[in-house]
């Protein structure tokens, strides 16, 4: 029983890891797009198309259930483009849905961090002649990382538990396995074990996050 749950856990772990690998970087352009000031002035009103599109994207991703997003991404290729679904489609749809969903949340966290950096930091960098890219990479980003760590920790822990949503689309992650075991063995123990798995894993996540926070604790501002 533990072995089967362990197998399911490995699948959950893959969803978790692939989502982070995809969403952490994808959140950056989304956040930058959301903050983009590029646009055209129409009288007193300023139209910022890039920011508007990013805002809409974030709104939809945060405003609709991740489960529905998985289904939408799973069925869209067939209904919209007539592409035949394969055995891998469910898995691919799950990963894509998780990445685009979490990128929206991460983008908002990045934005809050970037906007919390005092103007003086940009001005000091500008006067010293740093390029915009240098200013962002050397001055702003390291400080943002420290500031957003607690909020990112929240999302990452939520993600561990959200991997169980893949159950709905039929991906055999740990929760699906636990539910099957509960039915076949007429026992609630698999659920309890699954809960223990989630919790122990999140405990490890907390330890890692704590270490990173401690590592960045050498300064405050």
């Amino acid at each position, binding site marked *: 029983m533990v072995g089967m749950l362990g197998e399911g856990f490995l699948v959950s772990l893959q969803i978790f890891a692939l989502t982070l690998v995809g969403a952490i970087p994808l959140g950056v352009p989304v956040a930058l797009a959301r903050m983009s000031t590029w646009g055209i002035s129409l009288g007193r009103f300023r139209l910022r198309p890039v920011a508007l599109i990013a805002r809409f994207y974030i709104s939809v991703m945060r405003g609709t259930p991740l489960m529905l997003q998985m289904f939408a991404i799973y069925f869209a290729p067939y209904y919209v483009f007539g592409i035949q679904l394969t055995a891998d489609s469910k898995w691919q749809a799950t990963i894509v849905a998780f990445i685009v969903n979490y990128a929206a949340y991460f983008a908002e966290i990045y934005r809050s961090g970037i906007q919390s950096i005092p103007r003086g930091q940009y001005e*000091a960098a500008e006067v*010293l002649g740093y390029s915009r890219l240098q200013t962002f990479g050397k001055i702003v980003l390291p400080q943002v990382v420290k500031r957003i760590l607690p909020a990112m920790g929240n999302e990452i822990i939520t993600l561990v538990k959200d991997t169980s949503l893949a159950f709905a689309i039929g991906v055999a992650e740990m929760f699906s396995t636990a539910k099957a075991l509960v039915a076949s063995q007429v026992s609630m123990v698999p659920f309890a074990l699954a809960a223990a798995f989630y919790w122990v894993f999140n405990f490890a996540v907390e330890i890692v996050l704590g270490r990173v926070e401690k590592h960045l604790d050498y300064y405050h501002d």
Partner: protein
Amino acid sequence: MGQAQRRPDARPVVSMVNVRKSFGDVAVLKGVTLEVRPGETVAVIGPSGGGKSTLLRCATLLERLDAGSLAYGDLEVARDEGGRAVYGSAAVERAAKARFGLVFQNYNLFPHYTVMKNITDAPRCVQKRPRAEVEAQARELIAKMGLEGCEDKVPCQLSGGQQQRVSIARALAMNPKVMYFDEPTSALDPELTAEVLKVIKLLAAENMTMVVVTHEMSFAREVADRVVFMDGGVVVEQGPAAQVIDHPREARTQAFLHRIGE
């Protein structure tokens, strides 16, 4: 101070002519001309909102002029074309930024960098100078600023006075032709103020060209070759400290000095 080696006929290090700047409907600079010659220390005094900080922000390219011209020596940064300031290329602005240093009221040190890295990072990454040379210069500056032993500390471990001295060292490490100070002691208590003023006096004695926006009248009187009184977006009066502070001619200058108790 600085009088001995001042060359009044030399080309100004920085020259701002008939500078205008508005924020929305509010005109903050209404035609200000300021030229600073090599080795000169200029103190800019005046009430809050008089345009002193905006003048420095325009000189350091943090703000754009609406009209007027700005030049650093032979480098024309902005020229006036029919009442509008026209800026040169990005390369010109980059070159201009190498010619001045700015010390902020609230230091604006990079909190995640050590003192050493705060001072050496821009010379290394912006000016692409060799590490050994930059670090040797940084050590000299650290000693000069009285910050020995602070090399590996981060700003939050330092007092305000120490932080401000680090920020002076950071600006000096770029080898600027002129140093701007925007109320460098306004965030400090009297004791820490004295520490910072001491190093600025030291720079004046070395004939560093400087423009200091300040509320410290005794400091201005002691250090400045020239005092500029600004109010309402114009230079009301300027001249030697002994004249402007001790025997002001303009009513507005007299009223201001009376208000602050000088």
